[in-house]
């Protein structure tokens, strides 16, 4: 599929529209209904499996707020989630699907860990910015490969980004078990990076300061998308690439740029995970952030302002998932199904909403 032949997506890119009043209340209602229905349906499933839905949901929803440990864990989980979501939604605004956040995160983490290990004696003022910057650059470059294949050869970006994920697994495995392997770990893991490369911690229990950086990234994204010329051009390409091209927007460049920026943010997430959470590169550290990033992006309908909030909600569910498995004996995968159901019900609410509006005319 050549990229120019890709039809403009109609549902995904969000934009500020008119008629705010009724739209807003409908939006809130549809989200509430989707969440409620998803919990009802999965509650039935949990009950059918012979467990208590009430215990399960209590574990899911309260773990984040019962203790400050739970809350810090949730916030720290929110960081990679929100960054991977933006890595998905920024290209999506230009009509491109970046399904490669996982690979971009891993390559960013690998690069960050490499710098942190090679320069482990460097002072913090040098090493920390370097670790983060290298992670950002590596993620961006990795996404650029897919963008280049798309722009130059017409390779579908869904495929190229996904396949690069699998390539990145090999890279991580190699670095963690051959190059800087920590044989004591019993699992492909590198030796720790230098102390100067670690993000400072604040509060008790300690929370890494990458959280602040992620908040700043979110705010910047909202401003860029809504207020700036590149943001406008990005949305124009997403709404109708042909019309944008006819009116002087370099659509190839915008699409490539959006993927590279997305990759850079995923790489940033990888660097933060290394510098803030693990202090080293660990195989499998990407967890299921890619899937969750896509789900959050779709639930937030690509709206940059909604992303941080939806991401927080999902982070709560994810932190609660393991507690649910421990206390209510319900497999943690149940949460993935809850999330998929929220998304599906939300999509259906569009249909219902359109019908209602049509019939009320």
């Amino acid at each position, binding site marked *: 599929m050549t990229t120019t032949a890709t039809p403009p997506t*109609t549902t995904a*890119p969000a*934009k500020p*529209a*008119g008629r705010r009043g009724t739209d807003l209340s409908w939006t809130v209602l549809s989200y509430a209904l989707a969440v409620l229905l998803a919990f009802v349906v999965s509650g039935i499933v949990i009950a059918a499996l012979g467990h208590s839905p009430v215990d399960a949901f209590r574990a899911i929803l309260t773990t984040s707020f019962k203790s400050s440990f739970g809350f810090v864990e949730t916030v720290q989980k929110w960081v990679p989630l929100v960054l991977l979501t933006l890595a998905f939604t920024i290209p999506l605004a230009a009509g491109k699907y970046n399904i490669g956040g996982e690979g971009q995160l891993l390559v960013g983490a690998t690069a960050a860990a490499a710098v942190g290990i090679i320069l482990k004696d460097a002072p913090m003022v040098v090493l920390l910015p370097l670790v983060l910057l290298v992670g950002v650059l590596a993620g961006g470059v990795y996404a650029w490969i897919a963008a280049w294949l798309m722009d130059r050869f017409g390779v579908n970006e869904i495929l190229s980004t996904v396949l690069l994920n699998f390539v990145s697994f090999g890279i991580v495995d190699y670095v963690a078990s051959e190059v800087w392997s920590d044989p004591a770990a019993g699992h492909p893991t590198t030796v720790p990076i230098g102390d100067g490369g670690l993000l400072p911690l604040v509060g008790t229990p300690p929370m890494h300061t990458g959280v602040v950086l992620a908040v700043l990234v979110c705010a910047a994204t909202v401003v860029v998308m809504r*207020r*700036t*010329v*590149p*943001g*406008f*051009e990005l*949305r*124009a390409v997403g*709404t*109708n690439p*042909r*019309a*944008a*091209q*006819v*009116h*002087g*927007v*370099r659509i190839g460049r915008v699409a490539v740029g959006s993927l590279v920026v997305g990759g850079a943010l995923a790489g940033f997430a990888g660097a933060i995970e290394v510098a803030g959470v693990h202090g080293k590169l660990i195989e499998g550290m990407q967890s299921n952030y890619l899937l969750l990033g896509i789900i959050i992006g779709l639930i937030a309908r690509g709206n940059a302002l909604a992303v941080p909030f939806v991401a927080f909600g999902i982070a709560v569910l994810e932190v609660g998932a393991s507690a649910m498995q421990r206390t209510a004996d319900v497999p943690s995968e149940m949460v993935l199904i809850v999330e998929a159901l929220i998304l599906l019900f939300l999509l259906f609410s569009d249909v219902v909403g359109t019908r209602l509006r*049509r019939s009320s*005319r």
Partner: protein
Amino acid sequence: MTSVDETRREVREGASGPLLTMEGIRKTFGSVLALDGVDLTVGRSEVHGLLGGNGAGKTTLMNVLYGLYRPDSGSVVLDGSPVDIRDPRDAISHGIGMVHQNFLQVDTYTVTENVVLGTSLPSWPSLDLDDPAERIAELSKRFGLTVDPHAKVATLSVGLRQRVEILKALYRGAKVLVLDEPTTNLTPQEVDSLFGSLRAIVDEGMSVVFITHKIRETMAVCDALTVMRDGKRVGTVRRADTSASELATLMVGDDAAVGRVTEVVTAGMGAAAGTAATGAPARDLGDAPVRVSVRDLVVLGDHGVPATHGVSFDIRRGEVVGIAGVAGNGQVELAEAVAGVRALEKGAVEVDGEPLAGRPTAVWLESGVAYVPEDRHRDGILPSASIMENLVLGAQRSVRFRKGPFVDWKAARRHAEEAIRAYSVKASGPSAPAAALSGGNMQRVILARAFSHRPGFLILHNPTRGLDIPSTQFVYDRVREAAAEHSAVLLMSEDLDELTHLCDRVLVLYSGRIVGERTRGHYDQYELGHLMAGLEDTA
């Protein structure tokens, strides 16, 4: 499936009275009332014209007949018995065939495959298309619709593809054949041949509904006609009992309105295509300097094959130059190339002395090039974006709408409010989404955008396609205004009437080459048609 012969017999033996009656057809799209209780009666063996400006509801009415749209209310009686048409399958089984304006063909299929698609055919052990191909050849001979049954339709000209569409209906044994604006993109010679086929078809007992907005065509081929305006039927007359000017009044409505938009209606009224020298005598451009110079242009089409081969022309200040030609002869590529959207393979384009070849589109826009594309939905607007955002598009990097890296949305809003007023755009305000606009209002937004930076070179490609009469008139007025303000205007149109009416000079494009040129005062549509068909210039 009934064959043509059976149809003929049935019709001869059948009851007298009308073949088709549609009564009180009403159809809304969202909040838009497209058809307001329309009646239509088509007699046996007649060509029935359905006349009206674009947006009058002609196509919508026929799409209801063909089962593509479900009417909100109304009834259809065919051959004396009421029928319920839910989808095209029902329509086909009741003997209704329709030739759509945009041909509904599978490009990768052969003529035969396109014709038989959807009919039942034996498939064991393997699909046999030899018998259908023979029948198609037989039908095409009988009705003067010659076409090779084994050719891929993608390789056929517009005229031949239209024959395929008609054959599709005949093959299915249509009793009523609907043709939607069938003369669009045909040369006058091809139009004559089409009219010949239509007569052959009604002579065999079928009836034809002929949708058009050109009075001249209804006078040339119809036995009776129904005039529509604003989703209503405004009159049904026999051709023998009417006149072109009476039809014009019916089409437009009250006499005052006729005054405002006569130009559009009369452009399509010219008594017969053959009469030479339509329009006023040549305009004196004096010694106006050349503003746009195009030299030896070679542009590649979408498949990497050259679509134009060394096109050269100049446009002077205040001059309107037309490009005539059958669609698919390089128009799209030429328009996009001189608009700076498509890269030039070879050649040069200069606007006001500035060479633009090889520069990014944005530079062309800054140099005063403005482009009104043919397909406004695909190339012209951002559907889900607001009118305001659509008006900013293309100028987002200019100082008018920019403050540092930020878009100046306040200035954009002011500009949008002004444009909505100046161009009489019917919309709730600058924030209304562009997709909600009607075709005419959408085109007004696009024109407002094109004119907002006083274009030195204005390119319009089929700018009135699908527009209602007032909007068409609005476009004509803007073209005149641009010329009066010294723009160089390039008008590419599938409508010869429009070209001969508006242009100072018409170039004919055939197979990517300029094959002829006529200046105002020397227009002869048959001559132009001759050139458009690729025949040598005899003048």
